[in-house]
């Protein structure tokens, strides 16, 4: 008999590499959910952080206080911000059948479905690397990838996320991230 230990919780799993802002974007999305009146847990897969090494982060969002303290094994949403990780891991692993897979990639949703055999839910693709380079001139693709996840899932309002980003990075960095986020929302493909 299957047991659901995550009632009322929307759970995210993030993949990226150390230094790409996985932990930051996870926290930022968490804080946006908090600002909309939710309870949250936002935590990295802990370890000595090394630049370039694969890292994971987890987020739980719920209307009720969250009492389970463990890694997320069956996420509702998986977000992978580094295209090169798709060579070494299957991002759909453990993802709920009706879940959402969000990837920074040049591929489209159909290619991704074929490649990883994910038949359910939604696949969302966005070329966040190109967006980041064109808008910011630097490979900060965590925020545009998160933007695609937010617009596809509707877990929070995109404006709330932008508010958190501007709050954390006042000035030019925040403004450019806002442009990148808005462009990612427009360019994300869902299929």
């Amino acid at each position, binding site marked *: *008999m299957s*047991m*659901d*230990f995550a009632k009322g919780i929307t759970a995210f799993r993030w993949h990226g590499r150390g230094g790409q802002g996985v932990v930051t974007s996870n*926290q930022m999305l*968490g*804080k946006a959910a*908090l600002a909309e009146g*939710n*309870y*949250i*847990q*936002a*935590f*990295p897969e*802990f*370890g*000595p952080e090394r630049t370039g090494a694969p890292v994971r982060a987890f987020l739980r969002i719920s209307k009720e*206080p*969250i*009492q*389970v*303290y*463990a*890694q997320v*094994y069956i996420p509702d949403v998986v977000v992978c911000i580094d295209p090169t990780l798709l060579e070494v891991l299957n991002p759909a692993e453990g993802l709920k059948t009706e879940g959402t897979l969000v990837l920074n990639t040049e591929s489209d949703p159909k290619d991704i479905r074929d490649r990883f055999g994910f038949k359910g839910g939604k696949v969302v693709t966005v070329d966040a690397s190109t967006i980041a380079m064109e808008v910011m001139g630097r490979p900060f693709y965590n925020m545009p990838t998160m933007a695609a996840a937010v617009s596809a899932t509707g877990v929070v309002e995109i404006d709330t996320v932008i508010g958190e980003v501007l709050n954390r990075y006042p000035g030019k960095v925040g403004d450019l991230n806002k442009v990148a986020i808005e462009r990612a929302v427009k360019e994300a493909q869902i299929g």
Partner: protein
Amino acid sequence: MTISKDKIKIEGLTGDSAIAHALRQANLDVLAAYPITPQTIIVEDYQRFAADGEINAAVIPVESEHSAMSACVGASAVGGRVATASASAGLALMWEILYVAASMRMPIVFTVANRALSGPINIHNDHSDGMGMRDSGFIQLYCQSCQEAYDTTLMAFRLAEHHDILLPVMVGIDGFILSHNVERVEMLPDDEVEKFVGVRAPVDPLDPNNPLTMGPLALTDYYFEFKEQQDRAINRVPKVYKEVEAEFEKITGRKYGQFETYKTEDADIIIIAMSTMGGTAKVVADVLREKGEKVGVIRLKMFRPFPAEGIAKAVGNAKAVAIFEKAMSFGAAAHPLAMEVRTALYESKERPMILDFVVGLGGRDVPPTTFVEGIEKTKEYLKAGKAPKYETLGVRK
């Protein structure tokens, strides 16, 4: 009266940051610390508050944890409100001075992001450090959430500095699992905290104008009397803790107790666990109850002094108690938490079967399924009428 909602600041904070804010608001005189993962953010944040001029405490960045606790003892002896933070190997290096702090009756608040002890070197969570210091004379309070970490740190000053107590307090949070986890935290306004924590009123502080000797040599003549007094002091903790918590509840609406009971009244099997594992256990109990299994949870917050009578009463007529703990006492008759619980239940009329599951050492994840595995085993042992003395779960054997 509970503080009105518009005065409460809601923020997403890690356990470490929540504690740093509590220390900021508690108006310390001195914080002396040496950095160690996963406690580091507490002191980093606190030093930022100091650099930004938000606090006027003296922050002493010492050269080791032995010095950190020594500086705390000195600052506390002159009557200051004092705190420090550490974990694991850092805590171990404080060892000698932990006993000095408790025996000299210094009301230091010591926040710990609980972490495994070496070797091999491991930076992740278990309770080896906290359990190792359990006989040092510190009061020990373990927290489930970032909110509780904030609340407990504030209450710890009132408890430590109370004239019936005058003992140091350890406030424990699970390293990384809580220390680096952003949760929703309600922060009280500064002035309300100031009112709640008040100003420390020291008893016989060191004073150059009225010299006195503190912590001198006491051999066969008086050492034992010091210990007798220390013992009496820690046994007064439950009463004072209850008063402090009642006052805290009045302004926040929150209270935790020495331990929390969850669906224990009609339970056949009661899980006993500490810190974040207590939270996961409650979720497991809910799910198992939907399947018709009468499972309850006791989440222990106060490990020292150990609320033995209260636990025995809360266990009541349960058939089995399943302890889940994150520490080993190698070669002991039972591991640390089980040792306490077994002793607490020894005089019960109908003693339940007691299972001791050692889990999560060195940060090994303890998901709900580990609890389910333990409960399944408990049911088998109940049926068979016998059980092993203890068992490890979630480890390659």
